């Protein structure tokens, strides 16, 4: 326990040691570095369709105006949306990217005065069953309604806190992933900032807004806690942009109802600052969620890996001993799956298959994606293992009257399995860690859960330690199990025949 506390102290000191750039430094540098995620899309920050090398969006223009007010040039820094605050003090001076003002953010970061008022909008298919907000209060024909949100967004926390609704809230990494899923019928509805849907409405002609926005709040610009002069300068700059009408005309240009925005920004509701939880409270509140997600990690690995090994072995045998026409097909299978990223394969299975009428539950899609991807690697390992069995044993099997398939089944494959045990074991551990990629298709396993919780609570270090301990608790027994398995295979089979 003592060494654990020591680790805390060291990490704490390291965090404090990174000195963020305050206003003087920004001015001296001549650049305001602002962070956003261009993948988040319009109307905030997105690549200009006419020239994808250039970024555009109302926040790009806002950043330019702010930089101008500070007397410097704006410089864009790309980051993943739910991790943008981590860039503060390291790679960016501020974050401008539709960050909602919440009690937790007020506690953990320096938040500017609001620069935009957002409203949360419920969206559903035109021909779907969700035609009013109160529809969600009673279970649908297939049980609870499935509603998609952007992971880490206000929409997510608002929907998750609505215990009066019969909904399963599913978090997506991409802003408009949930719209795709509603459109293809996987989800019943989605909730997001109305300005985002308005921007993409043309693309989703099958969707419509359901009633008027039901909740809302403000966007804020985040700065590090230890750059008070920069924070103050940004606040003052926003004030001037509101006062002289430049912000209003910016919003009007982007069809964001400038007059209404200005009214709401001037009202500016008071938001309380959240209290910092004690370590005990933190663990008590997060451990059940972390444990549940750890279970998902184990489930994905233990379902996907045996499948991967089975398919991989079949592919290896097919490539070496199958009919001639099959070999190029299997070689193509291996090269395509090895040559493309796992993330892309998961995307294809989860987002593209529904377009041809095959909508798989996320966990099933994740298991299939992992199994297919790893089967390509396993097949190469088994091919090497089969080649390592001396040819003489194959001939000896044939000379005893065994068919080729019997020789494979009773002589070659059992030995290949033993030979490749160490690399296969290490692949199992690799898969165990690769399950985190599945968060791209809404499956929340341990790594994703950690990053969501760390950001919503601001307790990055403490939760990292808890998460690491959970990983160790899982991988240790797995390592023991695989070693035991290895020993079982090496042991001479006692007594009777085997096979």
């Amino acid at each position, binding site marked *: 326990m003592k060494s654990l506390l020591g680790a805390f102290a060291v990490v704490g000191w390291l965090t404090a040691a990174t000195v963020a750039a305050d206003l003087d430094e920004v001015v001296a540098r001549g650049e305001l570095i602002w962070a956003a995620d261009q993948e988040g899309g319009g109307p905030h920050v997105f690549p200009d369709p006419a020239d994808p090398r250039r970024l555009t969006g109302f926040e790009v223009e806002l950043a330019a105006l702010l930089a101008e007010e500070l007397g410097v040039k704006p410089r864009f820094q790309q980051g993943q949306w739910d991790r943008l605050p981590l860039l503060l003090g390291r790679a960016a001076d501020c974050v401008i990217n539709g960050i909602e003002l919440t009690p937790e953010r007020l506690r953990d970061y320096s938040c500017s005065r609001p620069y935009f008022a957002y409203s949360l909008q419920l969206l559903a298919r035109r021909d779907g069953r969700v035609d009013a907000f109160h529809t969600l209060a009673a279970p649908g024909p297939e049980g609870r309604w499935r509603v998609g949100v952007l992971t880490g967004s206000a929409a997510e926390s608002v929907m998750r806190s609505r215990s009066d609704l019969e909904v399963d809230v599913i978090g997506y990494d991409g802003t408009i992933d949930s719209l795709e899923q509603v459109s293809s019928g996987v989800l019943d509805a989605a909730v997001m900032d109305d300005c985002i849907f308005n921007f993409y409405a043309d693309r989703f002609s099958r969707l419509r807004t359901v009633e008027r926005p039901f909740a809302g709040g403000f966007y804020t610009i985040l700065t590090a806690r230890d750059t008070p002069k920069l924070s103050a300068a940004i606040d003052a700059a926003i004030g001037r942009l509101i006062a002289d009408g430049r912000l209003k005309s910016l919003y009007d240009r982007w069809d964001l109802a400038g007059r209404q925005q200005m009214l709401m920004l001037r009202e500016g509701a008071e938001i309380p600052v959240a209290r910092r939880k004690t370590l005990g409270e933190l663990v008590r509140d997060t451990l059940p969620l972390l444990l549940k997600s750890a279970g998902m990690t184990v489930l994905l690995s233990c379902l996907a890996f045996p499948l991967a090994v089975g398919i991989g072995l079949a592919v290896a045998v097919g490539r070496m001993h199958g009919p001639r026409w099959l070999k190029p097909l299997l070689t193509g299978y291996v090269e395509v799956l090895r040559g493309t990223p796992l993330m892309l394969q998961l995307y294809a299975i989860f987002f593209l298959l529904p377009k041809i009428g095959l909508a798989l539950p996320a966990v099933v899609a994740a298991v299939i994606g992992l199994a297919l991807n790893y089967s390509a690697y396993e097949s190469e390992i088994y091919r090497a293992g089969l080649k390592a069995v001396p040819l003489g044993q194959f001939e000896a099997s*044939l*000379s005893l009257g065994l068919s080729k398939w019997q020789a494979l089944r009773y002589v070659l494959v059992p030995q290949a399995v033993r030979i490749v045990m160490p690399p296969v074991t290490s692949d199992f551990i690799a898969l165990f860690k690769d399950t985190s990629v599945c968060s791209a298709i809404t499956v929340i396993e341990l790594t994703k859960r950690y990053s969501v919780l760390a950001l919503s609570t601001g307790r990055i270090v403490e939760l990292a330690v808890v998460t690491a301990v959970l990983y160790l608790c899982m991988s240790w027994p797995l390592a023991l199990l695989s070693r035991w398995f290895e020993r079982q295979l090496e042991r001479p089979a006692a007594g009777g025949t085997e096979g």
Partner: protein
Amino acid sequence: MITVSSLTKSRAQVRVLDDVSLEGAEGTVTALVGPSGSGKSTLLRCLNGLETFDAGQITIAGHRLAAGPHAPGLLERLRRDVGMVFQQFNLFAHLSAAENVALAPRVVLGLSASDARARGLDLLDRVGLRSFADARPATLSGGQQQRVAIARALAMRPRVMLFDEPTSALDPAMAAEVMEVIVELARAGQTMVVVTHDHGFARRAASRVVELAAGRIAREGLAGA
């Protein structure tokens, strides 16, 4: 039992076998001798279809092999009746001695596990290795491995046994113990074809010695002649 007529085989434009014909009656032991590269191992491997040939034909234990590729079904039937022992033993490394012997009877003949094991133990007894039944090949000496390999081939009760230089990979003491087993088989009337360098063996056990040179039969005669 064995009839080879006008067997011809080329490999990379070299005639490995050139118009080879020979006969082996039931209960006889044919020794194939000759220098390395004379084609004797190739001839032996043609006899159970491990290699194909370009012209001629083979009749062995009632099965007929023609030139060109063989049908897998034909080979599987033929090999039940024609056992083979290799220079490098080729025991199945993951199975015990008894399992090596019992595998084919169980898988190919469909014997129950216990019947197959009983047959395996009998044969290990016959080659003097009953007490090594549960040993892995890697823990056995070369001579012991080859005796297990012989037992394994005998487990299918073949009408013909083929031996491909069965003692060449062994030191003299171990070669002698393997030789003893083969001589014993010859006495029991097993039809055999043995590729060997060992003229002493050829004299002791063979009914007939066929000498090959450059793919042709150079000399043929009764053993001891």
